[in-house]
């Protein structure tokens, strides 16, 4: 029996396993209980219009903390693996000069992309956005800076400062919820944070604050991963 047949057999086996799932699926008309509960009570309990945000930050806030930790671990392991010795630095990464249009347009585009990332995570409770998405957009701005300037180097001090500070603030806000209110870790009803009218930018208590720091943390982590990849490329 050749390798090809084995592969085909395993793929077919997976297809057979998931075919009953596919067959029994019929699009539903009504929500399940948990989803219905979030739809009915989510806005009153958290103040956030975007229910996905309220699930991610408040109802399942602890999971999000774990998720950020996993991302942080991945970033640290990558920078540990690909760390390179400082003495053999290459002269330049590029063979040809970067086109003039890209270097010019980057000066306008990168601040605007950063602004858009900030818009995404500040409005995480109103629009389909949030910390993770905004962090990814910020990291894409960093990619543009790497591409337009072959000698661009990320300042690791700034990255580490932003990352650790926002992580600490995230945990502190969660602890403040546990201490000041009824003992819920990462509750969003903390005195001092704005509870404006639902739908305005300052509403939903601690959710926008948490999402802002989450966005900064994710953006810093992803930029760190990118920076490590690019620097390990320029080795030898």
């Amino acid at each position, binding site marked *: 029996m050749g390798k090809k047949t084995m592969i085909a057999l395993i793929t077919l086996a997976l297809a057979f396993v998931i075919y009953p799932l596919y067959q029994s699926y019929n699009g539903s008309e009504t929500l399940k209980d948990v989803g219905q509960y979030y739809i009915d009570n989510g806005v009153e309990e958290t103040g956030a219009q975007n229910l996905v945000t309220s699930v991610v930050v408040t109802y399942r806030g602890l999971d999000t903390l774990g998720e950020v930790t996993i991302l942080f671990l991945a970033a640290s392991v990558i920078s540990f693996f690909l760390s390179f010795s400082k003495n053999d630095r290459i002269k330049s990464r590029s*063979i040809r000069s970067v086109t003039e249009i890209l270097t010019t347009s980057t000066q306008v585009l990168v601040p605007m992309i950063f602004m858009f990332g900030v818009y995404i995570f500040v409005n995480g409770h109103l629009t389909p956005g949030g910390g993770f998405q905004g962090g990814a957009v910020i990291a*894409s701005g960093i990619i543009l800076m790497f591409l337009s300037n072959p000698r661009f180097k990320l300042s690791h001090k700034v990255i580490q400062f932003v990352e650790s500070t926002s992580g600490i603030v995230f945990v502190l806000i969660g602890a403040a919820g546990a201490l000041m209110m009824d003992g819920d870790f990462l509750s969003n009803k903390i005195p001092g944070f704005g509870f404006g009218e639902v739908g305005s930018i300052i509403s939903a208590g601690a959710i926008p604050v948490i999402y802002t720091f989450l966005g900064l943390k994710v953006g810093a982590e992803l930029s760190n991963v990118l920076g490590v990849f690019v620097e390990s490329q320029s080795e030898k």
Partner: protein
Amino acid sequence: MVDILIYTAMAISSIGVLVALVRFVKGPEKVDRIVAVDVISTIGITLILILATLMRREIYIDVAIVYAILGFIGVIVVSRFIKRGM
């Protein structure tokens, strides 16, 4: 009436995606594929806009802007990957 026009626009753009997909499969060069992806991502932005119009929800436009940013950066990254340093 307007809904019929919007559905027509949706159908025509979807045919556009299919035709561009033929060029993506045929190649023959890598850059041909990149251009096909560029055109497909522009059509995708328009499709998201059409969806927002049909559902009457403004917030979907944010998704379209994010897609525009990621498409732009993706094209530049892949062309840099081909040229090994621009």
